[in-house]
Protein backbone atom coordinates (compact mmCIF):
# COMPACT_ATOMS: atom_id res chain seq x y z
CA UNK A 1 0.00 0.00 0.00
CA UNK A 2 2.75 2.35 1.06
CA UNK A 3 4.74 1.59 -2.11
CA UNK A 4 1.70 2.23 -4.26
CA UNK A 5 1.10 5.58 -2.66
CA UNK A 6 4.72 6.53 -3.09
CA UNK A 7 4.68 5.53 -6.73
CA UNK A 8 1.55 7.56 -7.34
CA UNK A 9 3.08 10.64 -5.81
CA UNK A 10 6.18 10.24 -7.90
CA UNK A 11 4.16 9.82 -11.05
CA UNK A 12 2.14 12.86 -10.06
CA UNK A 13 5.32 14.85 -9.56
CA UNK A 14 6.70 13.75 -12.91
CA UNK A 15 3.48 14.84 -14.59
CA UNK A 16 3.73 18.25 -12.90
CA UNK A 17 7.23 18.68 -14.31
CA UNK A 18 6.07 17.57 -17.72
CA UNK A 19 3.21 20.03 -17.62
CA UNK A 20 5.75 22.85 -17.47
CA UNK A 21 7.87 21.37 -20.28
CA UNK A 22 4.81 20.87 -22.45
CA UNK A 23 3.56 24.44 -22.10
CA UNK A 24 5.34 25.99 -25.11
CA UNK A 25 4.53 23.10 -27.41
CA UNK A 26 0.81 22.38 -27.05
CA UNK A 27 -1.52 23.85 -29.62
CA UNK A 28 -3.66 25.52 -26.90
CA UNK A 29 -2.47 26.04 -23.35
CA UNK A 30 -5.91 25.31 -21.84
CA UNK A 31 -5.50 21.72 -23.02
CA UNK A 32 -3.01 21.19 -20.19
CA UNK A 33 -5.65 21.85 -17.50
CA UNK A 34 -7.14 18.41 -17.58
CA UNK A 35 -4.21 16.15 -18.45
CA UNK A 36 -4.21 12.67 -16.96
CA UNK A 37 -2.21 9.51 -17.49
CA UNK A 38 -4.60 8.70 -20.35
CA UNK A 39 -3.96 11.94 -22.28
CA UNK A 40 -2.74 11.44 -25.85
CA UNK A 41 0.08 13.94 -26.32
CA UNK A 42 -0.05 13.79 -30.11
CA UNK A 43 -3.76 13.66 -30.93
CA UNK A 44 -5.12 15.66 -27.97
CA UNK A 45 -2.35 18.13 -27.16
CA UNK A 46 -1.14 18.57 -30.74
CA UNK A 47 2.51 17.80 -29.94
CA UNK A 48 4.65 17.34 -33.06
CA UNK A 49 8.16 15.99 -33.57
CA UNK A 50 9.86 19.24 -32.54
CA UNK A 51 7.78 19.46 -29.37
CA UNK A 52 8.53 15.84 -28.52
CA UNK A 53 12.28 16.35 -28.97
CA UNK A 54 12.16 19.41 -26.75
CA UNK A 55 10.08 17.79 -23.98
CA UNK A 56 12.32 14.71 -23.95
CA UNK A 57 15.39 16.95 -23.76
CA UNK A 58 13.96 18.94 -20.83
CA UNK A 59 13.04 15.72 -19.02
CA UNK A 60 16.58 14.38 -19.54
CA UNK A 61 18.01 17.53 -17.98
CA UNK A 62 15.54 17.67 -15.10
CA UNK A 63 15.84 14.01 -14.07
CA UNK A 64 19.49 13.58 -15.06
CA UNK A 65 18.74 10.65 -17.35
CA UNK A 66 19.49 9.79 -20.94
CA UNK A 67 16.91 8.60 -23.48
CA UNK A 68 17.82 7.63 -27.03
CA UNK A 69 15.40 8.21 -29.87
CA UNK A 70 15.52 4.48 -30.57
CA UNK A 71 13.77 3.84 -27.24
CA UNK A 72 10.79 5.94 -28.28
CA UNK A 73 7.85 5.27 -30.56
CA UNK A 74 4.43 6.79 -30.99
CA UNK A 75 2.99 4.47 -28.29
CA UNK A 76 5.19 6.31 -25.78
CA UNK A 77 3.26 9.50 -26.48
CA UNK A 78 -0.24 8.34 -27.32
CA UNK A 79 -0.68 7.85 -23.56
CA UNK A 80 1.04 10.19 -21.07
CA UNK A 81 1.25 7.32 -18.56
CA UNK A 82 3.51 5.39 -20.93
CA UNK A 83 5.97 8.27 -21.11
CA UNK A 84 5.86 8.66 -17.32
CA UNK A 85 6.62 4.93 -16.92
CA UNK A 86 9.62 5.25 -19.23
CA UNK A 87 10.91 8.21 -17.21
CA UNK A 88 10.35 6.34 -13.94
CA UNK A 89 12.29 3.32 -15.23
CA UNK A 90 15.15 5.57 -16.28
CA UNK A 91 15.20 7.41 -12.94
CA UNK A 92 15.28 4.12 -11.02
CA UNK A 93 18.03 2.78 -13.29
CA UNK A 94 20.10 5.82 -12.41
CA UNK A 95 19.64 5.44 -8.68
Amino acid sequence: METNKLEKTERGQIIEHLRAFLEPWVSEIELLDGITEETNLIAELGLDSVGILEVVMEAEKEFDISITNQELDSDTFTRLGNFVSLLQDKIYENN
Partner: protein
Amino acid sequence: MRIIDLLKNSGAARPQALAIKSGTFELSYRQMLSDTESLSQRLRSAGCTRGTKVAIVLENSAEYLVSFFAVSAASGIILPLSTRMTPYEVAGFVERADVSIVVTSESWGKRLSGAMGEVLSSAVVCVRYDSSGKLAADIVKGGRLETEENCGDIALMVPTSGTTGVPKIVMLTDDNLLFNMAVFRLLMGFDAPQVAYCGLSLHHIYCICAQVLTHISRGDTLVVTSRPFFIRDFLKTVQRDRVTASAFVPSMAILLAEYPRPQEFEIGSLKYITLSGAKTPSSTYRSLTKRYPQTRFINTYGMSEAGSRISIAAPFPQDYPLESVGRPMPGVSVRIADEKGNDLPADCAGQILIKSSGVMKGYYKQRDLTAQMLVDGWLKTGDIGKVDEHGNLFILGRIKDVIVTGGENVCPFEIEECLIEHPAVREAAVVGRTDRLLQEVPCAFIVGRNGNRNPTDVDIKKFCRVRLSSHKVPRFVRFVEQLPRLGASKIDRNSLKKLADTLD
Protein backbone atom coordinates in the same frame (compact mmCIF):
# COMPACT_ATOMS: atom_id res chain seq x y z
CA MET B 1 -2.09 16.30 -69.51
CA ARG B 2 -2.82 17.37 -65.97
CA ILE B 3 -2.12 16.02 -62.48
CA ILE B 4 -5.57 14.48 -62.19
CA ASP B 5 -4.89 12.40 -65.32
CA LEU B 6 -2.24 10.44 -63.39
CA LEU B 7 -4.91 9.21 -61.01
CA LYS B 8 -7.41 8.61 -63.83
CA ASN B 9 -4.89 6.48 -65.72
CA SER B 10 -4.00 4.39 -62.68
CA GLY B 11 -7.68 4.13 -61.76
CA ALA B 12 -8.34 2.65 -65.22
CA ALA B 13 -5.26 0.41 -65.33
CA ARG B 14 -5.24 -0.88 -61.74
CA PRO B 15 -8.72 -0.29 -60.24
CA GLN B 16 -8.39 -3.02 -57.62
CA ALA B 17 -4.90 -2.06 -56.47
CA LEU B 18 -4.48 -0.41 -53.09
CA ALA B 19 -3.84 3.32 -53.53
CA ILE B 20 -3.74 4.50 -49.92
CA LYS B 21 -3.23 2.85 -46.58
CA SER B 22 -3.59 5.02 -43.49
CA GLY B 23 -3.61 3.02 -40.26
CA THR B 24 -6.33 0.43 -40.78
CA PHE B 25 -8.05 2.52 -43.45
CA GLU B 26 -7.54 1.42 -47.04
CA LEU B 27 -8.60 2.89 -50.37
CA SER B 28 -8.41 1.19 -53.77
CA TYR B 29 -7.67 3.16 -56.94
CA ARG B 30 -11.28 2.73 -58.08
CA GLN B 31 -12.60 4.13 -54.79
CA MET B 32 -10.00 6.91 -54.64
CA LEU B 33 -10.91 8.05 -58.15
CA SER B 34 -14.61 7.92 -57.43
CA ASP B 35 -14.21 9.87 -54.14
CA THR B 36 -11.95 12.38 -55.90
CA GLU B 37 -14.60 12.96 -58.55
CA SER B 38 -17.38 13.44 -56.02
CA LEU B 39 -15.26 15.87 -53.97
CA SER B 40 -14.37 17.79 -57.12
CA GLN B 41 -18.13 18.17 -57.82
CA ARG B 42 -18.53 19.51 -54.29
CA LEU B 43 -15.69 21.99 -54.87
CA ARG B 44 -17.31 23.10 -58.11
CA SER B 45 -20.54 23.71 -56.27
CA ALA B 46 -18.57 25.82 -53.78
CA GLY B 47 -17.45 27.92 -56.76
CA CYS B 48 -14.22 26.26 -57.84
CA THR B 49 -13.42 26.86 -61.47
CA ARG B 50 -10.30 27.28 -63.61
CA GLY B 51 -7.69 29.20 -61.63
CA THR B 52 -9.52 29.17 -58.27
CA LYS B 53 -7.00 28.88 -55.46
CA VAL B 54 -7.85 26.14 -53.02
CA ALA B 55 -5.84 25.74 -49.81
CA ILE B 56 -5.62 22.24 -48.35
CA VAL B 57 -5.02 22.27 -44.60
CA LEU B 58 -4.99 18.59 -43.68
CA GLU B 59 -2.43 16.32 -42.07
CA ASN B 60 -1.07 13.30 -43.97
CA SER B 61 -4.20 11.24 -44.63
CA ALA B 62 -6.43 9.75 -47.30
CA GLU B 63 -8.47 12.96 -47.08
CA TYR B 64 -5.38 15.03 -47.98
CA LEU B 65 -4.57 12.94 -51.04
CA VAL B 66 -8.15 12.82 -52.30
CA SER B 67 -8.45 16.59 -51.83
CA PHE B 68 -5.17 17.16 -53.67
CA PHE B 69 -6.39 15.40 -56.80
CA ALA B 70 -9.96 16.72 -56.44
CA VAL B 71 -8.73 20.32 -56.71
CA SER B 72 -6.91 19.40 -59.92
CA ALA B 73 -10.06 17.66 -61.21
CA ALA B 74 -12.07 20.82 -60.52
CA SER B 75 -9.47 22.85 -62.50
CA GLY B 76 -8.43 24.70 -59.35
CA ILE B 77 -4.94 25.55 -58.07
CA ILE B 78 -3.72 23.46 -55.15
CA LEU B 79 -2.12 25.32 -52.22
CA PRO B 80 -1.04 22.68 -49.68
CA LEU B 81 -0.45 24.15 -46.21
CA SER B 82 1.16 22.23 -43.38
CA THR B 83 -0.87 21.53 -40.25
CA ARG B 84 2.39 22.26 -38.44
CA MET B 85 1.65 25.92 -39.09
CA THR B 86 -0.20 28.01 -36.55
CA PRO B 87 -3.70 29.18 -37.56
CA TYR B 88 -2.21 32.68 -37.99
CA GLU B 89 0.39 31.43 -40.45
CA VAL B 90 -2.29 29.57 -42.39
CA ALA B 91 -4.51 32.66 -42.36
CA GLY B 92 -1.57 34.70 -43.70
CA PHE B 93 -1.15 32.40 -46.69
CA VAL B 94 -4.89 32.24 -47.32
CA GLU B 95 -4.88 36.01 -47.55
CA ARG B 96 -1.64 36.45 -49.52
CA ALA B 97 -2.55 33.78 -52.06
CA ASP B 98 -6.11 35.03 -52.60
CA VAL B 99 -7.48 31.65 -51.61
CA SER B 100 -11.19 31.22 -52.34
CA ILE B 101 -11.75 27.81 -50.77
CA VAL B 102 -10.10 26.13 -47.78
CA VAL B 103 -10.40 22.35 -47.62
CA THR B 104 -9.72 21.21 -44.09
CA SER B 105 -10.83 19.12 -41.12
CA GLU B 106 -13.53 20.10 -38.68
CA SER B 107 -11.06 20.90 -35.88
CA TRP B 108 -8.82 22.98 -38.14
CA GLY B 109 -11.87 24.74 -39.57
CA LYS B 110 -12.70 25.91 -36.04
CA ARG B 111 -9.13 26.98 -35.24
CA LEU B 112 -8.99 28.90 -38.50
CA SER B 113 -12.27 30.69 -37.89
CA GLY B 114 -10.89 31.65 -34.47
CA ALA B 115 -7.72 33.07 -36.02
CA MET B 116 -9.40 34.93 -38.88
CA GLY B 117 -12.89 35.57 -37.60
CA GLU B 118 -14.92 37.50 -40.10
CA VAL B 119 -11.86 38.48 -42.08
CA LEU B 120 -11.86 35.00 -43.60
CA SER B 121 -13.60 35.53 -46.90
CA SER B 122 -12.93 32.06 -48.27
CA ALA B 123 -15.38 29.21 -48.32
CA VAL B 124 -14.55 26.36 -45.93
CA VAL B 125 -15.11 22.74 -46.90
CA CYS B 126 -14.58 20.08 -44.22
CA VAL B 127 -13.71 16.59 -45.46
CA ARG B 128 -13.64 13.37 -43.49
CA TYR B 129 -13.93 9.65 -44.08
CA ASP B 130 -16.60 8.39 -41.68
CA SER B 131 -16.48 5.05 -39.88
CA SER B 132 -18.18 3.29 -42.80
CA GLY B 133 -15.44 4.50 -45.18
CA LYS B 134 -17.67 7.05 -46.90
CA LEU B 135 -16.23 10.47 -47.75
CA ALA B 136 -18.21 13.32 -46.20
CA ALA B 137 -17.56 16.81 -47.60
CA ASP B 138 -19.53 19.65 -46.02
CA ILE B 139 -19.44 23.23 -47.13
CA VAL B 140 -19.48 24.73 -43.64
CA LYS B 141 -19.10 28.31 -44.81
CA GLY B 142 -19.72 30.05 -48.09
CA GLY B 143 -17.23 32.60 -49.36
CA ARG B 144 -16.39 35.33 -51.78
CA LEU B 145 -14.57 34.20 -54.91
CA GLU B 146 -11.30 35.96 -55.48
CA THR B 147 -10.24 36.82 -58.99
CA GLU B 148 -7.08 38.69 -58.13
CA GLU B 149 -4.56 37.57 -60.66
CA ASN B 150 -4.81 35.56 -63.85
CA CYS B 151 -2.84 32.44 -63.08
CA GLY B 152 -3.08 30.84 -66.50
CA ASP B 153 -2.05 27.25 -66.34
CA ILE B 154 -0.83 27.11 -62.74
CA ALA B 155 -1.61 23.78 -61.02
CA LEU B 156 0.15 24.09 -57.69
CA MET B 157 1.30 26.91 -55.44
CA VAL B 158 3.78 26.10 -52.68
CA PRO B 159 4.86 28.32 -49.83
CA THR B 160 8.60 28.59 -49.41
CA SER B 161 10.74 30.40 -46.87
CA GLY B 162 11.51 33.93 -47.94
CA THR B 163 14.85 35.67 -47.49
CA THR B 164 13.26 38.97 -46.52
CA GLY B 165 10.85 37.78 -43.85
CA VAL B 166 7.89 37.69 -46.21
CA PRO B 167 7.22 34.09 -47.24
CA LYS B 168 7.04 33.48 -50.98
CA ILE B 169 4.61 31.38 -52.95
CA VAL B 170 6.05 29.41 -55.86
CA MET B 171 3.78 28.87 -58.89
CA LEU B 172 4.16 25.59 -60.80
CA THR B 173 2.26 24.38 -63.83
CA ASP B 174 1.04 20.86 -64.62
CA ASP B 175 3.83 20.71 -67.23
CA ASN B 176 6.48 21.69 -64.65
CA LEU B 177 5.35 18.97 -62.28
CA LEU B 178 4.76 16.22 -64.83
CA PHE B 179 8.13 16.80 -66.51
CA ASN B 180 9.93 16.62 -63.20
CA MET B 181 8.03 13.58 -61.95
CA ALA B 182 8.48 11.69 -65.22
CA VAL B 183 12.27 12.15 -65.27
CA PHE B 184 12.61 11.35 -61.58
CA ARG B 185 10.49 8.22 -61.96
CA LEU B 186 12.51 7.03 -64.93
CA LEU B 187 15.83 7.51 -63.14
CA MET B 188 14.69 5.75 -60.00
CA GLY B 189 14.21 2.62 -62.11
CA PHE B 190 11.46 1.12 -59.95
CA ASP B 191 10.68 -2.45 -60.91
CA ALA B 192 7.61 -4.12 -59.41
CA PRO B 193 4.68 -2.22 -57.85
CA GLN B 194 5.94 -0.22 -54.89
CA VAL B 195 4.64 0.35 -51.38
CA ALA B 196 5.85 3.83 -50.37
CA TYR B 197 5.98 5.02 -46.78
CA CYS B 198 5.12 8.73 -46.46
CA GLY B 199 6.50 9.88 -43.11
CA LEU B 200 7.31 13.45 -44.12
CA SER B 201 4.57 16.00 -44.48
CA LEU B 202 2.99 15.59 -47.92
CA HIS B 203 2.69 19.35 -48.41
CA HIS B 204 6.43 19.38 -49.21
CA ILE B 205 7.26 19.64 -52.90
CA TYR B 206 9.84 16.87 -52.36
CA CYS B 207 7.10 14.47 -51.27
CA ILE B 208 4.59 15.74 -53.82
CA CYS B 209 7.03 14.94 -56.65
CA ALA B 210 8.99 11.95 -55.32
CA GLN B 211 6.06 10.22 -53.66
CA VAL B 212 2.54 11.44 -54.46
CA LEU B 213 2.83 12.06 -58.21
CA THR B 214 5.46 9.38 -58.85
CA HIS B 215 3.69 6.54 -57.07
CA ILE B 216 0.13 7.47 -58.03
CA SER B 217 1.24 7.59 -61.69
CA ARG B 218 2.51 4.01 -61.32
CA GLY B 219 -0.53 2.67 -59.49
CA ASP B 220 1.58 2.01 -56.37
CA THR B 221 0.46 2.10 -52.73
CA LEU B 222 1.06 5.11 -50.47
CA VAL B 223 1.27 4.29 -46.77
CA VAL B 224 0.53 7.57 -45.00
CA THR B 225 0.95 8.55 -41.39
CA SER B 226 0.45 11.85 -39.66
CA ARG B 227 2.32 10.87 -36.52
CA PRO B 228 5.71 12.34 -35.66
CA PHE B 229 8.53 10.22 -37.06
CA PHE B 230 9.86 7.52 -34.76
CA ILE B 231 12.34 5.11 -36.20
CA ARG B 232 10.79 2.13 -34.42
CA ASP B 233 7.36 2.97 -35.89
CA PHE B 234 8.96 3.16 -39.32
CA LEU B 235 10.61 -0.27 -38.99
CA LYS B 236 7.38 -1.80 -37.67
CA THR B 237 5.46 -0.36 -40.62
CA VAL B 238 8.03 -1.62 -43.14
CA GLN B 239 7.61 -5.11 -41.68
CA ARG B 240 3.80 -4.96 -41.46
CA ASP B 241 3.08 -3.41 -44.85
CA ARG B 242 6.08 -4.75 -46.78
CA VAL B 243 7.18 -1.19 -47.53
CA THR B 244 9.58 -0.95 -50.48
CA ALA B 245 10.34 2.78 -50.79
CA SER B 246 10.46 5.98 -48.80
CA ALA B 247 11.62 9.60 -48.91
CA PHE B 248 13.84 10.73 -46.05
CA VAL B 249 15.54 13.86 -44.80
CA PRO B 250 18.93 13.55 -43.03
CA SER B 251 17.53 13.42 -39.48
CA MET B 252 15.53 10.30 -40.39
CA ALA B 253 18.58 8.78 -42.09
CA ILE B 254 20.68 9.36 -38.95
CA LEU B 255 18.09 7.59 -36.79
CA LEU B 256 17.95 4.65 -39.19
CA ALA B 257 21.76 4.43 -39.38
CA GLU B 258 22.02 4.39 -35.60
CA TYR B 259 19.19 1.99 -34.81
CA PRO B 260 20.88 -0.68 -32.68
CA ARG B 261 18.97 -3.83 -33.70
CA PRO B 262 17.28 -3.53 -37.10
CA GLN B 263 17.49 -7.32 -37.47
CA GLU B 264 14.59 -7.54 -34.97
CA PHE B 265 12.37 -6.51 -37.86
CA GLU B 266 11.81 -8.12 -41.24
CA ILE B 267 12.68 -5.25 -43.53
CA GLY B 268 14.06 -7.06 -46.58
CA SER B 269 11.32 -5.47 -48.72
CA LEU B 270 12.86 -1.98 -48.33
CA LYS B 271 14.66 -1.28 -51.61
CA TYR B 272 14.72 2.51 -52.17
CA ILE B 273 15.21 5.48 -49.87
CA THR B 274 15.72 8.92 -51.37
CA LEU B 275 17.57 11.49 -49.29
CA SER B 276 16.95 15.19 -49.62
CA GLY B 277 16.34 18.39 -47.64
CA ALA B 278 20.06 18.79 -46.88
CA LYS B 279 23.13 16.68 -47.48
CA THR B 280 23.14 13.52 -45.37
CA PRO B 281 26.48 13.29 -43.49
CA SER B 282 28.90 10.91 -45.23
CA SER B 283 29.50 8.89 -42.06
CA THR B 284 25.74 8.30 -41.82
CA TYR B 285 25.60 7.33 -45.48
CA ARG B 286 28.42 4.79 -45.07
CA SER B 287 26.75 3.27 -42.06
CA LEU B 288 23.41 3.00 -43.89
CA THR B 289 24.88 1.20 -46.89
CA LYS B 290 26.78 -1.18 -44.61
CA ARG B 291 23.91 -1.98 -42.28
CA TYR B 292 21.10 -2.10 -44.85
CA PRO B 293 22.76 -3.65 -47.92
CA GLN B 294 19.43 -4.50 -49.59
CA THR B 295 18.44 -0.81 -49.77
CA ARG B 296 19.59 1.81 -52.28
CA PHE B 297 20.12 5.15 -50.53
CA ILE B 298 19.79 7.78 -53.21
CA ASN B 299 20.99 11.35 -52.65
CA THR B 300 18.96 13.97 -54.47
CA TYR B 301 18.94 17.76 -54.59
CA GLY B 302 16.00 20.00 -55.33
CA MET B 303 13.99 23.06 -54.40
CA SER B 304 10.41 24.24 -54.81
CA GLU B 305 11.35 26.80 -57.46
CA ALA B 306 12.81 24.01 -59.63
CA GLY B 307 9.55 22.03 -59.68
CA SER B 308 11.47 20.06 -57.21
CA ARG B 309 14.21 17.62 -58.24
CA ILE B 310 17.40 19.01 -59.82
CA SER B 311 19.93 16.20 -59.46
CA ILE B 312 19.89 12.59 -58.37
CA ALA B 313 22.37 9.76 -57.71
CA ALA B 314 20.27 7.09 -59.41
CA PRO B 315 19.61 4.40 -60.40
CA PHE B 316 22.86 3.09 -58.90
CA PRO B 317 24.06 5.35 -56.08
CA GLN B 318 27.42 3.57 -55.88
CA ASP B 319 28.26 5.08 -59.31
CA TYR B 320 28.46 8.55 -57.74
CA PRO B 321 30.98 10.09 -55.32
CA LEU B 322 29.68 9.85 -51.77
CA GLU B 323 29.82 13.61 -51.19
CA SER B 324 27.86 14.47 -54.34
CA VAL B 325 24.11 14.82 -54.88
CA GLY B 326 24.39 12.89 -58.14
CA ARG B 327 24.21 14.41 -61.59
CA PRO B 328 21.68 16.88 -62.97
CA MET B 329 18.64 14.98 -64.28
CA PRO B 330 18.20 14.79 -68.07
CA GLY B 331 16.49 17.98 -69.20
CA VAL B 332 17.97 19.99 -66.33
CA SER B 333 20.89 22.27 -67.25
CA VAL B 334 23.20 23.39 -64.47
CA ARG B 335 25.72 26.24 -64.52
CA ILE B 336 28.10 27.33 -61.81
CA ALA B 337 28.58 31.10 -61.93
CA ASP B 338 30.69 33.69 -60.13
CA GLU B 339 29.26 36.83 -58.54
CA LYS B 340 29.10 38.61 -61.91
CA GLY B 341 27.28 35.72 -63.54
CA ASN B 342 30.28 34.36 -65.49
CA ASP B 343 30.54 30.60 -65.94
CA LEU B 344 33.17 28.88 -63.83
CA PRO B 345 35.23 25.85 -64.91
CA ALA B 346 34.92 22.35 -63.40
CA ASP B 347 35.68 22.01 -59.69
CA CYS B 348 35.32 25.76 -59.02
CA ALA B 349 32.77 26.84 -56.45
CA GLY B 350 30.07 29.35 -57.33
CA GLN B 351 26.32 29.87 -57.31
CA ILE B 352 24.30 27.00 -58.81
CA LEU B 353 22.01 28.20 -61.62
CA ILE B 354 19.54 25.86 -63.28
CA LYS B 355 17.27 25.80 -66.31
CA SER B 356 14.65 23.15 -67.06
CA SER B 357 11.03 22.55 -67.98
CA GLY B 358 10.41 22.08 -64.26
CA VAL B 359 11.37 25.63 -63.28
CA MET B 360 8.52 27.68 -61.80
CA LYS B 361 6.52 30.36 -63.56
CA GLY B 362 7.46 32.72 -60.75
CA TYR B 363 6.47 33.86 -57.27
CA TYR B 364 2.83 34.75 -56.83
CA LYS B 365 2.34 38.55 -56.94
CA GLN B 366 6.09 39.19 -56.64
CA ARG B 367 7.18 40.14 -60.13
CA ASP B 368 10.30 42.03 -59.02
CA LEU B 369 11.54 39.17 -56.93
CA THR B 370 10.77 36.73 -59.76
CA ALA B 371 12.81 38.89 -62.14
CA GLN B 372 15.74 38.84 -59.70
CA MET B 373 15.65 35.08 -59.26
CA LEU B 374 14.86 34.08 -62.86
CA VAL B 375 17.18 35.66 -65.40
CA ASP B 376 16.90 34.54 -69.05
CA GLY B 377 15.22 31.36 -67.85
CA TRP B 378 18.07 30.58 -65.42
CA LEU B 379 17.00 30.11 -61.82
CA LYS B 380 19.38 31.34 -59.13
CA THR B 381 19.25 28.66 -56.47
CA GLY B 382 21.04 30.66 -53.77
CA ASP B 383 23.16 27.57 -53.11
CA ILE B 384 26.94 27.39 -53.58
CA GLY B 385 28.19 24.32 -55.40
CA LYS B 386 30.59 22.87 -57.90
CA VAL B 387 30.49 20.35 -60.72
CA ASP B 388 33.41 17.95 -61.13
CA GLU B 389 34.90 16.86 -64.47
CA HIS B 390 32.47 13.91 -64.63
CA GLY B 391 29.43 16.14 -64.20
CA ASN B 392 28.71 15.26 -60.56
CA LEU B 393 27.14 18.07 -58.55
CA PHE B 394 28.33 18.98 -55.05
CA ILE B 395 26.54 21.34 -52.65
CA LEU B 396 29.01 23.35 -50.60
CA GLY B 397 26.96 26.00 -48.83
CA ARG B 398 24.46 28.74 -49.40
CA ILE B 399 24.42 32.43 -50.16
CA LYS B 400 21.14 33.21 -48.42
CA ASP B 401 20.81 33.37 -44.63
CA VAL B 402 18.54 30.38 -44.45
CA ILE B 403 18.46 27.97 -41.51
CA VAL B 404 17.97 24.36 -42.56
CA THR B 405 16.37 22.37 -39.76
CA GLY B 406 15.17 18.80 -40.16
CA GLY B 407 14.94 19.32 -43.93
CA GLU B 408 12.86 22.50 -43.60
CA ASN B 409 14.18 25.87 -44.76
CA VAL B 410 13.54 28.62 -42.27
CA CYS B 411 14.15 32.31 -42.79
CA PRO B 412 15.75 33.90 -39.71
CA PHE B 413 14.08 37.27 -40.43
CA GLU B 414 10.64 35.76 -40.00
CA ILE B 415 11.58 34.58 -36.49
CA GLU B 416 13.26 37.91 -35.69
CA GLU B 417 10.14 39.83 -36.70
CA CYS B 418 8.11 37.65 -34.39
CA LEU B 419 10.55 38.17 -31.49
CA ILE B 420 10.53 41.95 -31.93
CA GLU B 421 6.79 41.93 -31.29
CA HIS B 422 7.45 40.75 -27.72
CA PRO B 423 7.18 43.81 -25.45
CA ALA B 424 10.44 42.96 -23.61
CA VAL B 425 12.52 42.55 -26.77
CA ARG B 426 14.39 45.49 -28.27
CA GLU B 427 16.51 43.69 -30.84
CA ALA B 428 16.82 40.10 -31.95
CA ALA B 429 19.02 38.05 -34.25
CA VAL B 430 18.43 34.41 -35.08
CA VAL B 431 21.06 32.05 -36.45
CA GLY B 432 21.29 28.30 -37.01
CA ARG B 433 23.04 26.38 -34.24
CA THR B 434 24.68 23.19 -35.44
CA ASP B 435 22.62 20.18 -34.38
CA ARG B 436 23.69 16.56 -34.68
CA LEU B 437 20.26 15.31 -35.70
CA LEU B 438 18.51 18.24 -37.38
CA GLN B 439 21.63 19.87 -38.97
CA GLU B 440 20.65 23.21 -37.47
CA VAL B 441 18.15 24.56 -34.97
CA PRO B 442 17.15 28.23 -34.59
CA CYS B 443 19.03 30.03 -31.82
CA ALA B 444 17.93 33.54 -30.78
CA PHE B 445 20.11 36.30 -29.37
CA ILE B 446 18.02 39.03 -27.81
CA VAL B 447 18.71 42.50 -26.47
CA GLY B 448 16.08 43.19 -23.82
CA ARG B 449 14.25 46.42 -23.07
CA ASN B 450 14.07 46.07 -19.31
CA GLY B 451 17.67 45.87 -18.12
CA ASN B 452 18.06 42.69 -16.15
CA ARG B 453 14.37 41.92 -15.90
CA ASN B 454 14.24 39.76 -18.98
CA PRO B 455 11.58 37.14 -19.66
CA THR B 456 12.64 33.49 -19.34
CA ASP B 457 13.49 31.43 -22.39
CA VAL B 458 10.28 29.45 -21.82
CA ASP B 459 8.28 32.70 -21.99
CA ILE B 460 9.95 33.54 -25.29
CA LYS B 461 9.32 30.06 -26.71
CA LYS B 462 5.66 30.18 -25.67
CA PHE B 463 5.30 33.61 -27.26
CA CYS B 464 6.80 32.33 -30.53
CA ARG B 465 4.91 29.04 -30.57
CA VAL B 466 1.55 30.85 -30.73
CA ARG B 467 2.73 32.70 -33.84
CA LEU B 468 5.15 30.33 -35.58
CA SER B 469 5.33 26.69 -36.68
CA SER B 470 7.10 24.60 -34.06
CA HIS B 471 10.29 24.13 -36.10
CA LYS B 472 10.70 27.93 -36.30
CA VAL B 473 10.55 28.40 -32.52
CA PRO B 474 14.09 29.12 -31.22
CA ARG B 475 15.39 26.08 -29.36
CA PHE B 476 17.99 28.26 -27.64
CA VAL B 477 17.35 31.78 -26.35
CA ARG B 478 20.08 33.99 -24.94
CA PHE B 479 19.86 37.59 -23.73
CA VAL B 480 22.88 39.73 -24.62
CA GLU B 481 23.94 43.32 -23.95
CA GLN B 482 24.26 44.07 -27.64
CA LEU B 483 24.44 42.29 -30.98
CA PRO B 484 27.80 42.09 -32.79
CA ARG B 485 27.78 44.16 -35.96
CA LEU B 486 29.76 44.50 -39.16
CA GLY B 487 30.01 48.24 -39.68
CA ALA B 488 27.11 50.41 -38.64
CA SER B 489 24.08 48.24 -39.10
CA LYS B 490 24.66 44.77 -40.49
CA ILE B 491 24.51 42.07 -37.83
CA ASP B 492 27.58 39.83 -37.75
CA ARG B 493 25.76 36.53 -38.21
CA ASN B 494 28.93 34.50 -38.56
CA SER B 495 30.21 35.43 -35.14
CA LEU B 496 26.75 34.78 -33.65
CA LYS B 497 26.71 31.39 -35.33
CA LYS B 498 30.06 30.53 -33.75
CA LEU B 499 28.75 31.70 -30.39
CA ALA B 500 25.57 29.66 -30.83
CA ASP B 501 27.58 26.50 -31.38
CA THR B 502 29.29 26.93 -28.00
CA LEU B 503 26.06 27.28 -25.99
CA ASP B 504 24.95 24.52 -23.61
